Structure formats: C-alpha cells, structure tokens
C-alpha cells in the first residue's frame, strides 16, 4: 500500500522559462496533522528531500500544548544562510489519502525563523518512507519502510 498525492499547483503571473512558459508551479505539498499533548493542527507542508529536519513554526508549539522552554535545541540555516535556532519536541504526525492513514511519533523542530512553508524533511518524516516523486504525473507516492515507527 502507498499513499498518493497530487502536487499542489500555484499560479504564477508570468511564463516560467524553465517550464517552457507554463504559468503554474507544481509543488509536492500535502496537509499533515500534528498532534500534541493538548491540541492538534493541520498544516500544508512541503516534502523536501533537501531538508535535514521536519520543521514547523514555533507558534504551533503553543497550539499543540508543547513547552519549548527546556527543549533541546540546535541551529539551522536555509537558503539565506542566516542561522536560526531550532528547538525539538515530540509530536504525533498524521498523513492520509482516501485509502490509507499513517500516524507516527517523531522529534520535530520548531523555529521562530520565518518559513516559506513548513517542511517534512529527512528526520521525523522522510526517514520512515520510500518517497517516489512522479515528475511526469506531478504525483507523490509514499510507502512506509522498515523503520516506520507508527501504525
């Protein structure tokens, strides 16, 4: 069994030279539900094979009932190369399509840095799946692997 999602398509005002003049960007974004000690929240997140961690805005920790004051932390840097603090906490993540639902616990990062999109990166997400990016169909396929810790 695999989870399958179409890419989300975003309208662009100008023709995109690298996409033969197409005026929309297909991006592998899907809705993921985060479940914490006292709340849950569903957010669009980008499947990003270049992201080391799964990363969400710090504001969400409050919504989920997570106290980050004593949380282990590290630093991260994105395209702008500005260092930002990342604090880690355990949450339950859930993704589903019309045939399959997957829910697992993971340590994910929270940051006060401005994120273009929350990221489903290697640690906490992609490490547990075999991900196939069907560029021709603009479709993403996720299959749990042997390390998947959830149900």
């Amino acid at each position, binding site marked *: 069994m695999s989870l399958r*999602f179409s890419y989300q398509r975003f309208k662009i005002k*100008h023709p995109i030279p690298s996409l033969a003049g197409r005026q929309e960007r297909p991006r592998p974004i899907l809705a993921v539900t985060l479940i914490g000690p006292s709340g849950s929240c*569903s957010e669009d997140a980008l499947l990003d094979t270049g992201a080391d961690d799964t990363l969400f805005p710090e504001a969400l920790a409050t919504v989920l009932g997570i106290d980050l004051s004593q949380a282990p932390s590290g630093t991260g840097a994105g395209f702008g190369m500005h260092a930002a603090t990342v604090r880690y906490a355990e949450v339950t993540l859930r993704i589903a399509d019309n045939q399959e639902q997957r829910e697992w616990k993971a340590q994910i990062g929270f940051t006060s840095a401005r994120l273009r999109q929350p990221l489903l990166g290697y640690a906490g997400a992609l490490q547990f799946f075999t991900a196939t990016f069907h560029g021709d169909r603009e479709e993403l396929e996720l299959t749990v692997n042997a390390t998947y810790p959830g149900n």
Partner: protein
Amino acid sequence: MNDNRKTGVFIDSKRYNENRNRLPPELLEPYAGQYVAFNAEGTCVLAHGEDHFAVEAMLRATGVDPETVVYARIPGADEDTWL
C-alpha cells in the same frame, strides 16, 4: 503525551490537494503572502490573516473549530521561484 489529547479532524490529503488545484487562482490572489485556513476538503477559504494566530482568531470569531481546518501560507506575488 496523555490519552486525552485531541486528535484533530481526518484530512484526506489526496482529495484536499485535488480540490485545492480546482480553486480558481483569482480566489487566492487577495491572500498572497498571507496565511489562510482552508476547510478540510480544500474547497474554500474560511479565514485569513498575517499569521497563524490571526487566522485562528478569525476562525473562532466565526464559530469554526481551528482543529477542523488546514492552515496554509499563500505564496507572495514575488515568489515565482522557491530556492
């Protein structure tokens, strides 16, 4: 994590994305650069604001449970390419 945690609404992301892709681009243009809340099916925008908390406040003001929606950031008009 205690057993009384709230587990949120079930989101079928396949259907959600398919419906999101059907939305006319003009519908989302006013929200460029903002955060919005879509309904769980991805068929309409329920609230918008400058950040997560502004969206949540708008949802509560209109009687919508924030745990039943999907939050998303609509790319700004200058975000043709993500690097």
